[in-house]
């Protein structure tokens, strides 16, 4: 049994096929990259895993459970956390409260949730800002908050959607450190990212899709030297 896999995952919006027959496996404990040019369907894949869109055909399996048709919140409870490309902070709550909302997944007691949230914030290096309103955070801190919130639900699989976009190089470096730290804590990660330095650096394996179809998969080096990938990114000569 694979830790996580998709089988012939397909999604059509009316006539437009956004994701076409994508199958891939994720091994427990790895960081799996998902890349592709703009509009190639990466975020749609996340939205399918996450249950935000219903699947047109195909299957998603997580630890042997079929996720098809489950509502988003149940998928979260099964142990899949996610962040959003366009961050969705709960704007008029403090950072701590944001994370506590997630932490209540594991407990109904406020003090326990708070304790757990403080741990997560410490882990994500956001402790100093715990009493800030989420709407007042910088973009870097908002991305951290997204991650912290996803972590606080106690996931075994974490979906990171363009966590680095819009960050300064220094922030990116810190982000990479954080992602590694999460992996080291035993959480499997699927990451969608545009910033190639990042993805090539941290991923164990990468899947590249274009026009909703998989065009290459393998280690970072294999993918980077794949002709189809280079064409997808730089265009044909």
């Amino acid at each position, binding site marked *: 049994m694979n830790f996580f896999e998709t089988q012939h995952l397909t999604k059509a919006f009316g006539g437009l096929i956004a994701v076409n027959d994508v199958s891939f496996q994720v091994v427990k404990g790895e960081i799996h990259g998902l890349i592709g040019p*703009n509009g190639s369907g990466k975020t749609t894949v996340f939205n399918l895993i996450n249950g935000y869109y219903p699947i047109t055909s195909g299957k998603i399996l997580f630890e042997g459970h079929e996720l098809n048709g489950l509502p988003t919140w149940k998928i979260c409870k099964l142990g899949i956390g996610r962040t959003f490309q366009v961050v969705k902070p709960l704007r008029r709550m403090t950072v701590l409260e944001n994370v506590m909302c997630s932490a209540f997944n594991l407990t109904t007691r406020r003090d326990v949730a708070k304790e757990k949230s403080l741990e997560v914030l410490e882990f994500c290096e956001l402790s100093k800002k715990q009493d800030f309103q989420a709407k007042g955070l910088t973009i870097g801190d908002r991305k951290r908050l997204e991650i912290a919130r996803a972590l606080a639900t106690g996931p075994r699989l974490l979906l990171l959607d363009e966590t*680095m976009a819009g960050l300064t190089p220094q922030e990116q470096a810190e982000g990479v450190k954080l992602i590694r730290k999460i992996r080291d804590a035993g959480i499997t990660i699927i990451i969608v990212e545009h910033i190639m330095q990042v993805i090539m650096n941290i991923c164990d394996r990468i899947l590249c899709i274009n*026009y909703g179809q998989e065009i290459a998969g393998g280690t970072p080096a294999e993918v980077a030297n794949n002709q189809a990938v280079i064409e997808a990114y730089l265009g044909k000569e």
Partner: protein
Amino acid sequence: MLRLEHVNAGYGDIQVLWDVSFRVKGNEFVVLVGANGAGKSTIMRVISSLISPTSGEVWFEDQRLDQVPPYKIIDLGIAHVPEARQLFPEMTVLENLELGSLSPKAKAHRKETLKWVMELFPRLNERQKQLAGTLSGGEQQMCAIARGLMSRPKMMIFDEPSLGLSPLLTQEIFRLVQRIHGEGVTLLMVEQNVKQTLAICDRAYVLENGRVVLEGKGKELLENEQVKQAFLGI
């Protein structure tokens, strides 16, 4: 013709552009390339005055663009073909095109312009009465470009015209872009399809993380290893 000087801009408290300066001369074809999230679209929105820079200036000919409301930009002679087409899906192709020529100057010549545009895009001519939302991706892109042309612009700015198009269609779009340049329109284009665009443009700027990191002739940049690195991270 168009100059950006030390522009800092962003959305709310998120800064996206850091001290961006570049210029487009009359009749030039300039391309901005950069990975996603590098701030290309933000530059486009700054030029169109949809967002105003926190500091710095944007000049078009003798006009400060950053002090003009967005709906007046097109009157000055700049047509913006936005990312993801942004057509009006429940209106016909013809109506979409007509909406491109709202300014009094363009309106006066609407019929001639329409004829010219239809010659340029024969496929749109066939689908005049069709709802824009029902067009295929390539046709939608053409419609968006045609709509921009309807204002008889001095300058056109394209935001990722190849987005979501197959390689074949992308090539067709680029051929059209070149033809428009041939008609004497100044062009500024944002693209992620690096090789093809660098091959056809006059000059290019490379953006990384909201900053301009490289500038040069298209062909020269094509050979530059740094460009490849910026895109593939190797």
